[in-house]
Structures are given as structure tokens and as C-alpha cells.
């Protein structure tokens, strides 16, 4: 699924888009530095490690010599990325050749990390609290439940009648910013958009990142410093899962963030008589880790079995999963732990109409395949995948493109000359020599008109 990667990479692009001074400020935190390094392409990581203890500027040529001649493209991508994130800074030398240096702040932080072995950003609370902390299994269930609640909110706006879940205003605003649901006009409740449908079919990590990204993007409007927010979010990812951390020592801004993240299931807040503390869940570790390529691994077991007769059996108790399936499957009956449905032309076409593509459906079905079904190859029967693709092609029988029609040519020769010219420049869409009419692409109209003028006649054009 190509868009997953785009989404997860985008966060670092956001970091890269920060002004230089702010970016340098971010590199004051060892956690940001580590997260940034880990987000880099593999080759770029190696470059950082190689330059880590080099104080002097290194000429770009000697860096290029590290790479094999065949891998020049990869090398350029790596260097570009490093420059974008200001990990590498161009050092001006007297000589003309370009040379690079590691960002001194980042360099220092990373050196410290290597010497001390990293550790955790803040001390967890003493073991006396540990007894009251939920077990990891409970914590994961909690995280999943919270996250499902978030998605259910989105789904509930897809089916107007099912608005049983009370809407959380921050979330709704975030969804709206992300373009997942429409901004309400008048009294009409917000409706889910095409992007929203696609969002539902993504894996949890990508979803989380998209939400967090929007959250950061809107930070400035709410009077938060986005650089500070980013570094705090990245720091959260380095905390140990399932350990309690004191909430009271955080700055007010950070406490605010914690509260909002708790709604997403990224962490759980508990309070005792005097203290309040938060416990990061598995989702929190994804904050710094999701950029890694393994994010495709789906947490939790698969549950969907697709049969060659288009029947779908989903062993799930989750309301959310049933709702997501409902997007493109006609549900036939629901048992306490089983949902049975079938893929029909109508159900799939409705999904296409909401902007879900065949690839997204198929990848959802194969990613969530039941362990028994996942052993088979292909996971989703070919008949089913082919049919879904055929149904999609059905919708694309008509192609629209803006065009101009040229007709009433004075002579057959002019028509033929124009016709040939249009074919040569690739502007021809349709022609009919018997009636001397032809249709050309709108964007090539200028060239066509000039050519026809040069034919020293004035054809009428419409």
C-alpha cells in the first residue's frame, strides 16, 4: 500500500519543513536526534554513523566514494535527505568543492547516546506504584479499545443512523482538518469523506501518524510551539511501555498533550491520592518507531476468511471491524463472535463510489486474514481479487479529458495535414476523415491553432 509510506514519512518532512533555527533547537534533545536518525534511509544512517566522530568537514567527493558507482542514485537521495533535515550542514571552505559536516548539536547528542547507551528520557516512578499499574495485556487491550473508539467515531459519521457515540470535539476538529470528515454546514452532521474511507482501511500505525500529524499541524493555532510539541512526542516514544511516569512534573503544555493523547489510547492516565501518573502503551512506542519499514506488521490476530464464492467470514467481536467490513461487504448475519457477509457487485460499487480503491480492499482483506487463511497463497482467492479489479475497471470505461474540436476544413489536404500534425505531437484524441472532423487535447490547442494558421486558412473552431 503505497500511501502508507507517504503518510509515515510525512511526519519527518514536517520536521524538515521547520525553520533552520527551530530545527537546530530540536536537536538539543537526544530523543529527537535518535528518532530523526532512525527515520533516515539505511544508507543515510550509515553515513551519520561514519561521520559521528569526525570533527572536520568532509568533502562531498570523499563521501561519494563510500558508495558504489551503481548506487549513485541511492547516495544522492541519502545526502538530500540529510541536508533537508539539517543533519548534514554544508561547510564553506576556501576551496571550491562542497564539504559537509554533521550538525554539531546533533553530533554531540548522538555521541552522548553512544557513550551512555541511551536509557530512558525520564525516571519512572518507584516500584511501589508498580502494583497498581495494569498488566501489559490489560494495557494493550485498553489501547486498542481507545483507538477503536476513535475510529468508531469516524465510522459513525459514515452511517448517519448510528450516531450513538458521543463526539469528542478535539477529535472531530482533527478529523476535519485531516479532511477525513466534512465540515458541517448548518445543522447537518459531518459526513465522512473519500479520504476518511481510505483512512479506515489503513493499518493502525499509519492511522495514528496521520492523526498525530494533523494534531501537530494545528498546534500553532492553539498557541503551542510546534517544535516543543514534536520533541515531546518523539520523547514519549522512548519511554518504557507499561511503566508509570509522574504527570505532575510535566509542564502545563505537556500535561495538555498527555490528556489529549490519552483519548487516542497512546497512554493511560491513573491517579492516586496525591499523584497522577501516565503509562505509555504500545501505541506510544510507535510514535518514534513507526517510520521503520516493519510497521506493516499488523498488531493483533487476523480474523477474515475469504472464500472463492465471495463469502466472507470475519471472526471478530469488535464493532469497529464489522463497521469497516460493512464499507464494502454486504453483511448477511452477525453472530456474537462471527460476521458473515459476501462481496457483491453492489457492495463493492458503493465502496468505489466512496473513493475506496480495489487495491485498498484487497490489501485490507489479506492483511487481516485469519491465520489459517494466511497460510494459503494467495491469501485472498484469485477469483475474488480479479473480480474486484474487473468491477473497478467497469467504472472507468469513460475517460474524460478537456478537448477542442476542429471541423469545416476548407480542403481535404488541410484536414490531412492538420490530422497528421496532431498525431505527430500527440494531441489527437479522435478523428473522422469522412466528415473532416477531429478532436485534440485542450492543452495542445495553442500549437494546433498556430499550425492551422500557418496553413493560411481560417477554420472555424468551437
Amino acid at each position, binding site marked *: 500500500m503505497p500511501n502508507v509510506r507517504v503518510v509515515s514519512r510525512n511526519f519527518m518532512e514536517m520536521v524538515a519543513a521547520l525553520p533552520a533555527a527551530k530545527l537546530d533547537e530540536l536537536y538539543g534533545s537526544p530523543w529527537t536526534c*535518535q528518532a530523526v*536518525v*532512525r527515520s533516515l534511509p*539505511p*544508507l543515510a*544512517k*550509515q553515513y551519520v*554513523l*561514519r561521520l*559521528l*566522530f569526525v570533527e572536520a568537514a568532509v568533502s562531498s567527493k570523499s563521501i561519494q*566514494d*563510500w*558508495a*558504489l558507482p*551503481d*548506487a549513485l542514485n*541511492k*547516495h544522492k537521495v541519502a545526502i538530500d535527505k540529510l541536508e533537508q533535515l539539517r543533519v548534514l550542514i554544508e561547510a564553506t571552505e576556501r576551496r571550491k568543492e562542497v564539504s559537509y559536516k554533521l550538525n554539531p548539536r546533533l553530533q554531540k547528542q*548522538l555521541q552522548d*547516546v*553512544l*557513550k*551512555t*547507551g*541511551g*536509557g530512558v528520557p525520564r525516571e519512572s516512578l518507584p*516500584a511501589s506504584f*508498580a502494583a497498581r499499574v495494569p*498488566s*501489559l495485556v490489560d494495557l494493550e487491550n485498553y489501547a486498542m479499545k481507545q483507538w477503536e473508539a476513535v475510529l468508531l467515531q469516524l465510522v459513525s459519521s459514515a452511517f448517519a443512523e448510528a450516531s450513538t457515540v458521543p463526539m469528542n470535539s478535539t477529535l472531530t476538529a482533527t478529523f476535519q482538518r485531516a479532511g477525513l470528515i466534512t465540515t458541517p454546514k448548518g445543522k447537518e452532521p459531518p459526513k465522512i469523506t473519500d479520504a476518511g474511507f481510505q483512512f479506515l482501511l489503513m493499518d493502525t500505525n499509519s492511522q495514528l501518524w496521520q492523526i498525530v500529524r494533523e494534531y501537530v499541524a494545528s498546534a500553532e493555532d492553539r498557541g503551542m510551539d510546534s517544535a516543543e510539541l514534536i520533541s515531546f512526542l518523539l520523547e514519549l516514544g522512548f519511554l*518504557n*511501555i*507499561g*511503566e508509570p511516569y509522574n504527570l505532575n512534573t510535566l509542564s502545563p503544555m505537556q500535561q495538555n498533550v498527555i490528556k489529549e493523547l490519552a483519548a487516542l489510547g497512546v497512554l493511560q492516565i491513573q491517579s492516586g491520592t496525591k499523584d497522577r501518573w501516565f503509562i505509555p502503551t504500545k501505541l506510544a512506542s510507535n510514535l*518514534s*518507531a513507526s517510520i*521503520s*519499514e*516493519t510497521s*506493516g*506488521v499488523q498488531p493483533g490476530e487476523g480474523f477474515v476468511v475469504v472464500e472463492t464464492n465471495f463469502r466472507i467470514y470475519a471472526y471478530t467481536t469488535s464493532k469497529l471491524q464489522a463497521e469497516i467490513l460493512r464499507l464494502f461487504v454486504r453483511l448477511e448475519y452477525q453472530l456474537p463472535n462471527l460476521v458473515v457477509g459476501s462481496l457483491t457487485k453492489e457492495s463493492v460499487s458503493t465502496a468505489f463510489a466512496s473513493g475506496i480503491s480495489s487495491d485498498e480492499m484487497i490489501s485490507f482483506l489479506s492483511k487481516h486474514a485469519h491465520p489459517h487463511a494466511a497460510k494459503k497463497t494467495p491469501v485472498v482467492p484469485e477469483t475474488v481479487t480479479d473480480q474486484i479489479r474487473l468491477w473497478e475497471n467497469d467504472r472507468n470505461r469513460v475517460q474524460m479529458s478537456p478537448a477542442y474540436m476542429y471541423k469545416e476544413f476548407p480542403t481535404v489536404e488541410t484536414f490531412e495535414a492538420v490530422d497528421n500534425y496532431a498525431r505527430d505531437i500527440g494531441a489527437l484524441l479522435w478523428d473522422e476523415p469522412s466528415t473532416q472532423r477531429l478532436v485534440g487535447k485542450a492543452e495542445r490547442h495553442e500549437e494546433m491553432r498556430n499550425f492551422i494558421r500557418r496553413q493560411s486558412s481560417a477554420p472555424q473552431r468551437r
Partner: protein
Amino acid sequence: MDALNATDDISQVVILLEANPYFWGGRSNGAHSTGPANFTFDRFLEHVLLFINSLHLLNQANRIVVIATGATSCAYLYDSNAAELSENARTARVSKKLSVVEKITQKLEDFMSKEAVYDLNQGTEDNRYSLLSGSLSMALCYIQRILRGPSPHPLPRILCLQGTPDAPPQYIAVMNAIFSAQRSLVPIDACIVGNHHSAFLQQATHITGGIYMKPPAPEGLFEYLSMVFATDLYSRKFLQLPRASGVDFRASCFCHKKSIDMGFVCSVCLSIFCKGQRTCTTCNAIFAPSKQPNPAAAAAQKRKVS
């Protein structure tokens, strides 16, 4: 999702740490020193710990295992995976807070005291050599477990930090380990910290497609480790890496474990002997005395007769 993502740079690195007390101890005495005198075990360990930290820095999903290669035994020192696995236990929560450095040094102390005990019980005949075959086998066993585990697993590789010279008695065991590594597509890298080149490891790296290197200045070990051996298998396709200048392909004979240029080979099981035999000691095949011995054998025969 059986095949790994092509752009994956997650690695499972198994480091075989030279921990032969006689090798490092002999060094400070200067008596029969086999390496540069100013490179002590402490310094060596510092470099390796930095290297381990940098592997963790490169990718949080990188997994690292350290196995100590001693004179009489081998032991797991560190497994970055184990901390995560035992998370459920409440007691593990406390022990998890120990840093990598503390974990390794603690285990290393245990290991050394055990080595001392073994040493008292056994003769000190061959303590110049480390149990490379043992630690290689342990590494391969560990990797097999990873490879057979849940399907998206990291790409494994082995890094030998070897200081002691090759132990001829281990020849067969080491070669078997090398071939099994080759079969499971596990590259063996070798970084020699001692004074002698290792023919075993030259062959190992050559056969498995790993990197062999003997740093000219072991004091800067970390530099070599980070420049060369930190490179993950994916990036190796794009980077210039040192190539072995020459590989010592000499085999050792099965009878006296001497490395030889020319010898006798059993026609049935391909065992190598430095002297002509009537029967093969490995497969018990009986050799008929041939009328026309090949020139090499004939030369050896003559030498033996005279």
C-alpha cells in the same frame, strides 16, 4: 508476508567476543604477547560496547546477541531480545533498568570466574586457543531459532572478534559451522584484533560472503567497527567495503590437524591426511595399493620410504 521487505535494514547481529583470559592476560605480561601491548581488554570492551550502542541507535528493531569465546567454554553475555521477552514478569521490570553496559559486564564477570574453575579442572595444554567452533555453533543455533520463528525476522549476520590464533584441533568443527552458515545464508564477518591472520576466518568470510579485516591499528577499533561492520546487509549492496586481499585456503589434515599444502584425500569421504594410509580413519574404506600413484602421492611415498 513471508519474504522480507527489500528495503529492510533491520539486522540480527551475533557478536562473538574474544574473551580468552590467556590471550588478554598474556598481553599485559608482555611475555608471549600476541597483540599490541597497549590494547587491553578494557579498551577492547569499551569499543565493542560503543559499537553495540551504535547498532541500537541505527534501528530500534536491531537485535544484538553477544557470545563470549573463552579458552574452555562459551557463554551468552547479552541478548537485546531477552529483555523484551521476559517483560511480563514483574521482577523483570527492575532488572530491565540495567543498562547494556551493566548487563554485559556483570555476565562477563560470571563467565570469567567460571572459566577459572574449568581451567583448574582441565589441563592448560591448549589455552592459547579460543573455542571458536563452540561460539560459532552457538551463534548458528541462535540464528536458526530466529529463522524458524515468526515470519518477518531480521536479517542475521555473525561478527567474530578474534584475537587468538587458529586452533588446529577445531578445524573440522569450524568448517562444518561455516558450511552450515553458508547454507542458511548467514554471512560471517571477521575482525582480527590479534597479531596473526586467521585462515579459518578468511575462509569463513570468503565462503559466506562476509567481510574479513585485520585492523592495522587495533587502538582505533571502534572506527573500523562503525565504518565497516555496522553496515547492514541491505546497505552493503551500495557501499564500498574492504575486500580480502588473499585467502589462505590451506586445509588441515584429519590425522594430526596440521595445515598442509598437499596431502592424501580419501576417495570415498574426502577426508584429508598428511600421510598415506591403508584404511581411512573416518569412513573405514580400504585403499587398494594403486599401480600408478599420482605424482604428489608418489613424491610423498618416496619421502616416507627414504
